[in-house]
């Protein structure tokens, strides 16, 4: 990614006023530096001519004031720049999260939530320096040198010309940065990440290594990998640090040239001491903005490397559908039909579903059975509109599901996923996800129907017990029953149950299947299962084989 990528610049729109303020403060700061240098030269020149300290107090006070003004301006810059940066960062972070949530509720690109979180929190934060310092510095690097040159030219034109002559080194430096540093930084970043992953892998596998008696060998391997990385990194650094040195050379050489020529001209009497001293003090300031630009670029290189990943996530095409009709068909009145539906994950070979036909008549309970990997859970995700079929059509009555408002459709579907998530909050909060407005009584009734009321009342704080991250941990059976209570509370005409009894002990299986039977009444239901307990109650059993050849068997008829 380029340093001034338009995608990054576009994101700064809302923070432009603050960034402008930041830049103006920076320019004011440069002016303070010019005043400071000139006053310093004035004091030195007057003292040289024998002025007494008493007559110089005013000038010394002015010098201190210039420094204090710089201090205040630098402080203001820090505040304005970082405030601007953080408003951009917040926007980016929320855009990223909303994008994932609304268009990729199920990650089909193999990105796990940990990675997205890392990009949204640490990754986005790595861009702080970019927005707070680098971007303002880009503007300052084009204003301040002109300011310095103009000021010096007023004092002594010849010195200004010498300084101007050293400036062509700057584009050379910029070119070098663009040419080497950027790519090397990226390579180094990748190498470093690889190294960290390797280390993590080894530490994670330590018990295994000990069990097979290889723990010692691995320490040596670890040392060797780190050493190899050091050697290759140092090789690249030898080149990429050169670019910084070129600018440093321009700066020190410029100062030395100005000092020596000014010295010679002073001897000949064609230049006064005050002018010579002013020029000398100000000469280094010409290069400061460029050096700072280089430093800020280096400091935000990590962020820029992460930005690439961030935009890949932000600009990913949507998995879910885009609506085109306002009517929402009701599964209580119309049949839900999958016609020749196929689905395959991008980048993976072979479809998960291949030309599947399936019909759910209103009020019917259908059991979907098949091996793991046959695509059973994918069917659930497709029916919920969390994924869009790659081919074929899902319809409710005469309406294509993909054309419906996803939100409105999902209000008619209740779902108990295979591994229900407990969100951090109380048990009641978690059940109320099914209907946030539900009364206490209705919520308790739903829990009772799900066979969850008893164990919930046995928890230390009953329905107010905190669960989820950092709260009390629940067994898989308890989680499942809370998820069923959620689905009951939602009271939707179509219910999808994904392996509701998998991994449960026999007692829990009995409780859960009893809850499922109660839930059936008056609803269309799709039960994904391999256990006989639930399949028994189905009106129809559909066998799904990998690929999707489907055989149906009507229980009632059999």
């Amino acid at each position, binding site marked *: 990614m380029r340093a001034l990528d338009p995608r990054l610049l576009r994101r700064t729109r809302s923070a432009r006023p603050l960034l402008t303020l930041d830049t103006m403060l920076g320019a004011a700061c440069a002016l303070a530096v010019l005043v400071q240098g000139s006053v310093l030269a004035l004091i030195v020149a007057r*003292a040289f001519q024998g002025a007494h300290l008493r007559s110089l107090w005013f000038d010394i006070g002015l010098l201190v004031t210039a420094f204090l003004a710089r201090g205040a301006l630098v402080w203001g810059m820090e505040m304005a720049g970082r405030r601007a940066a953080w408003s951009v960062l917040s926007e980016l972070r929320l855009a990223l*999260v909303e994008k994932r949530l609304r268009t990729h509720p199920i990650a089909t690109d193999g990105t796990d939530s940990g990675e997205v979180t890392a990009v949204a*929190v640490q990754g986005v934060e790595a861009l702080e320096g970019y927005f707070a310092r680098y971007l303002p510095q880009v503007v300052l690097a084009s204003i301040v040198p002109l300011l310095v040159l103009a000021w010096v030219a007023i004092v002594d034109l010849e010195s200004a010309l010498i300084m101007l002559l050293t400036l062509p080194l700057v584009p050379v430096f910029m070119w070098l940065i663009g040419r080497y540093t950027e790519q090397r930084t990226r390579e180094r970043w990748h190498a470093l990440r690889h190294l960290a992953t390797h280390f993590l892998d080894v530490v994670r596998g330590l018990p295994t290594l000990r*069990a097979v008696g290889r723990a010692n060998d691995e320490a040596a391997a*670890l040392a060797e990998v780190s050493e190899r990385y050091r050697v290759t990194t140092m090789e690249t650094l030898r080149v990429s640090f050169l670019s910084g040195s070129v600018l440093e050379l321009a700066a020190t050489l410029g100062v030395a040239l100005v000092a020596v020529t000014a010295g010679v001209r002073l*001897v*000949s009497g064609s230049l006064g001491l005050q002018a010579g001293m002013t020029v000398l003090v100000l000469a280094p300031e010409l290069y400061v903005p460029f050096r700072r630009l280089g430093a800020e670029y280096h400091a935000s290189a990590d962020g820029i490397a992460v930005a690439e990943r961030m935009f890949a996530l932000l600009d990913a095409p949507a998995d879910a559908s885009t609506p085109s009709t306002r009517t929402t068909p009701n599964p209580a009145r119309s049949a839900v039909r999958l016609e020749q539906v196929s689905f395959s994950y991008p980048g993976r070979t072979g479809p998960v579903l291949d030309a599947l036909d399936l019909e759910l008549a209103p009020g019917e309970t259908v059991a979907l059975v098949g091996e793991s990997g046959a695509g059973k859970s994918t069917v659930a995700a497709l029916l919920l509109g969390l994924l869009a079929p790659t081919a074929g059509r899902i319809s409710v009555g005469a309406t294509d599901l993909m054309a419906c408002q996803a939100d409105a459709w999902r209000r008619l579907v209740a779902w108990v996923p295979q591994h229900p*998530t407990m969100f951090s909050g109380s048990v009641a909060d978690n059940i109320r996800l099914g209907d946030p407005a539900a009364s206490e009584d209705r919520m308790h009734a739903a829990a009772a129907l799900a066979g969850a009321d008893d164990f919930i009342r046995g928890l230390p704080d009953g329905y107010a017990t905190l669960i989820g991250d950092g709260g009390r941990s629940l067994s898989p059976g308890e989680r499942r029953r809370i998820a069923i209570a959620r689905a009951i509370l939602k009271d939707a005409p179509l219910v999808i149950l994904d392996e509701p009894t998998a991994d449960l002990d026999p007692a829990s299986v009995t409780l859960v299947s009893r809850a499922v039977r109660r839930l059936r009444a008056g609803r269309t239901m799709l039960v994904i299962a391999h256990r006989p307990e639930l399949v028994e109650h189905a009106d129809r059993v559909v066998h799904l084989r990998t690929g999707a050849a489907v055989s149906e068997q009507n229980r009632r008829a059999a």
Partner: protein
Amino acid sequence: MSGTVRSLLALGEAPRARLGVGVLLGALTVLFGVGLMATAGYLISRAAEQPAVLSLMVAIVAVRFFGLGRPIIRYLERLASHDVALRVLGRVRVSFYRRIEPLAPAQLDGYRKGDLLSRMVADVDALQNLYLRGVEPPLVALLAGAVAVGAAAAFLPAAGLVLAGGLLVGGMAVPALSGSLRARAGRRQAAARGELSAELVELLRGAPELVAFSGEAARLERIRAADSRLVKLAQRDALATGVGDGLGLAVTGFTVAGVLAVAVNASAEGRLDRVLIAMLALLALASFEAVTPLADAAREFAATRAAGQRVLELTAGGAAVRDPDQPAPAPCWPFTVALEGVRARYPNQPRPALAGISLSLRPGERVALVGPSGAGKTTITNLLLRFLDPAAGRVTIAGRDLREYRQADVRRVISVAGQESHLFSASIGDNVRLSRPEANDRDVEAALHRARIWDWVQALPNGLDTLVGEEGRELSGGQRQRIILARALLADAPVLILDEPTAHLDPSTASALMRDVFSAAGGRTVLLITHRREGLDLVDRVQTLPPGSAGIPGHTARRRR
């Protein structure tokens, strides 16, 4: 220097000579800058007296020398300090690894929680900054500052004194103030960041359900709130940073003014040659380059120290399991394995993990140990591999207590395959060969064959060289377990422990795996630890581990093979 820092430096095995070179080059970089400005100031002032140009030659040469020398020294300094950081990174990793090696997994809380482990590894990696940010900048500031002050004092003692005072305030008081302000904000920021991350992970993991239940708007609101808390704290940090930078400039201003004042005064009184006024002022101005980086360094150092503290706490305990001084000879046939009234407890855990269990495995016998999760099944594996010593009772092989053998000898007798076995991000071949590095491709092939996965491996375009991905992510659950099994089979140990090999597998995959496992096990003693039904029909005996295994000996049911 505090004990923490000293221990951390020991962890990195400080490459002292290289560090010294880095500090020296760092100080020289600053001093060359000081030299350039000071000699240039002298040159201009002296030139104003209009002497013969030749008498300025020394000053001119000095200006050019400092001007040309500084970029070169700076370049060398950057290389040297990055080299030290990279060396330290490698050493810290290795010595950390060596320290936790005897502790894993029994003595490390939360070892199985992936994110805790990643945080630990990130903490270790952060220690590379210890030198670059923690040790080098103060030493550079001290050295360069001392030389600059000495030089100023040589010309005018009062100027040296003023500069020393200014550098002390600028290098210690300002970073300390800004550092303590930032540290407070920083701690709260880290907490807020953690909260936001936790909210985000939860939101994204639960995304399908939130969307399906239209609950995403409420959750996004929580994210927004967590984010704005973080933003507020960042602004407080900006305030503290700004105060530090601003005060630094103010101190510089007062110091330069002070040096000017004493120099002007001394010159008026005839104690100082007037050509030295500019030199002293510019020397003072340039020498603040030595202390400016200290404010940032102080903050980074605090963060690094906190990371280091966590690392040290983790490895503070020392290994509980040790080899005996006079080990018994390696166990030999018959390899009867037994637990006799064993109670076990993990360090820092209030409740015992296992309260009184007895179990005996005769050579060639196949026993299943079943029980719900939390009954202490994995603890039995840890005891048998001697990752953990029993709190009471004893574990024996061939009649001798495990504590009498060398750990390596015990682990040659017992090999484990199961849910907790790790697949490294390497090739299939490497992962299998791990248990017997000297094995050739044909041995590996044979092991994979017996694990009934050779046909699949052979059909892959890269065969044995196929990469399995991080934690074997590229493979299915069943494939992972079979490769782990092949690894255990290749070790060719007489006792095979299968620790929840069917976890997360669907019933038909699980049954197929169990059939293949038992046919591959041959005449080995097998202990199958499971909470599922698959495979129970293939063992000689099933022993039940009651929930919590609260001292009740498990009842045994006989089965036919």
